[in-house]
């Protein structure tokens, strides 16, 4: 299985542990991710606040590169990238004025986009193309006894995802279950983490993170699994400030791909588990317990 791959800026920066865990896990499952040559920033939510036409053009350059380079299935692991690329694709299809301005921009530099690219999320690929059974077969260190709160955040499941449900998505739950983990009932799984408000309006943004963290702790989770680099950063990076304001809610937040990697037998460091603020050692050591010797 071969796909085009759009890493996005975060996976090369603050969210590099996402890429560090995604690539080996996908390769281990026989999924080849071919990075888009000379991809540019998707624009995220910030560019959309400045100019809607420029934002569409920005995103579409990537779609055009994917269409030229192939394969047409383009994997975007970051939630903002996934949303923005999908939004542009849909807007080009649905709104003549967007289509017109985007084509004008592409024409100018001799590029083209005819709408063939499908923007897909790793969860979609893993659940629908690879399948839970194939994932289960690769597990050598089951995550037995590890209680995981699956946290999807907003922008993957809303509003463009077709592979899962907007309020109660389950694809990550099923994948983590296949790894042997225990899924904690976590009704806040699609509640917003506050995005960039953690930095710009901390009173509001950090409280949103606190609510998510506290609820995961209250429900007995050992770890929160996330699919978004901004969610990961927000839930991991501000514990000292959150603690000072509202009290402790200490729990590690890792990428779901890091948990997959652990279950597949990769070493924590290979998966970027040393890149977190909150120590992830407890997860790694819980997983290292020999589960293979048939303990009940």
């Amino acid at each position: 299985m071969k796909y085009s791959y759009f890493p996005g800026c975060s996976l090369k920066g603050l969210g590099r542990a996402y890429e560090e865990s995604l690539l080996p896990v996908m390769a281990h499952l026989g999924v080849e991710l071919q990075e888009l040559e000379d991809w540019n920033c998707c624009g995220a939510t910030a560019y959309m606040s400045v100019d809607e036409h420029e934002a569409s053009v920005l995103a579409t350059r990537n779609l055009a590169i994917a269409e030229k380079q192939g394969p047409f299935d383009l994997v975007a692991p970051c939630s903002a990238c996934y949303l923005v690329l999908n939004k542009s694709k849909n807007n080009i299809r649905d709104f003549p004025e967007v289509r017109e301005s985007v084509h004008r921009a592409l024409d100018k530099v001799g590029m083209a986009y005819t709408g063939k690219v499908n923007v897909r999320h790793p969860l979609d690929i893993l659940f629908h193309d690879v399948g839970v059974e194939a994932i289960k077969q690769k597990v050598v260190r089951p995550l037995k006894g590890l209680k995981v709160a699956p946290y999807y955040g907003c922008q993957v499941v809303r509003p463009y995802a077709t592979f899962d449900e907007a309020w109660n998505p389950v694809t990550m739950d099923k994948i983590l279950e296949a790894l042997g983990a225990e899924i904690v009932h976590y009704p806040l799984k699609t509640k917003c983490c506050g995005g960039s408000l953690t930095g710009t309006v901390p009173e509001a943004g950090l409280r949103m993170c606190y609510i998510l963290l506290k609820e995961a702790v209250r429900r007995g989770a050992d770890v929160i699994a996330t699919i978004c680099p901004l969610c990961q950063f927000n839930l991991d990076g501000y514990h000292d400030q959150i603690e000072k304001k509202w009290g402790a809610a200490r729990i590690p937040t890792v990428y779901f791909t890091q948990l997959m990697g652990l279950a597949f037998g990769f070493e924590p460091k290979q998966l970027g588990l040393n890149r977190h603020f909150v120590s992830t050692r407890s997860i790694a050591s819980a997983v290292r317990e020999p589960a293979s010797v048939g303990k009940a």
Partner: protein
Amino acid sequence: MFTVKRTIKYDADRVKGFGREIMGVTGCEQLPSCIQCGTCSGACPLTIYMDFSPRQIMALVRADFKNEVLKSKTVWLCASCYACTVECPRQIRITDIMYALKQRAIKEKVYPRNMPIPILARDFAKMVLSKGRITETLLVMQLFMRANWRAAFSSWRLGIGLIRTGRFVLKPERIERRQELADMLSTVRNSGNGKGHL
């Protein structure tokens, strides 16, 4: 001096045609069909911090209260989680309307003072324009410098944590064909609602 503030808007406060302009922006066409049910305000995780709820913003835009809307904190508190958009029984893309309002507020420079979000959005766009990619640590440092030294200093822990975990990137990421991107963007400049006012 005893001062009073009028709590009801007068017709004279309206800027005729503003609502229609916003409805003309891509994705905002459904606004006229708002039934003021308030589902958006209920779904929004940030309503409790807003000066006008999303439902009120919909009504204010439709009724041409341009100044009230563009100066509101509400549009800048929208974190784009799309909860309202998914829930709206009239299929109004409320998040897109919030974007249209952000674009206008930046373009007309009427966003609330001391609000760092529009500055972040502009700095973000500038970095994309010149480099083609974002280097998050550089962007955030730039924002802190702009804000004030005390804020920058209070975040030293975060910076040290990033260095410790090997995520403090100082070398800007950039694309090869920056001219190509600039040429593409130049074709649509001044054609949208935001008009790329940087």
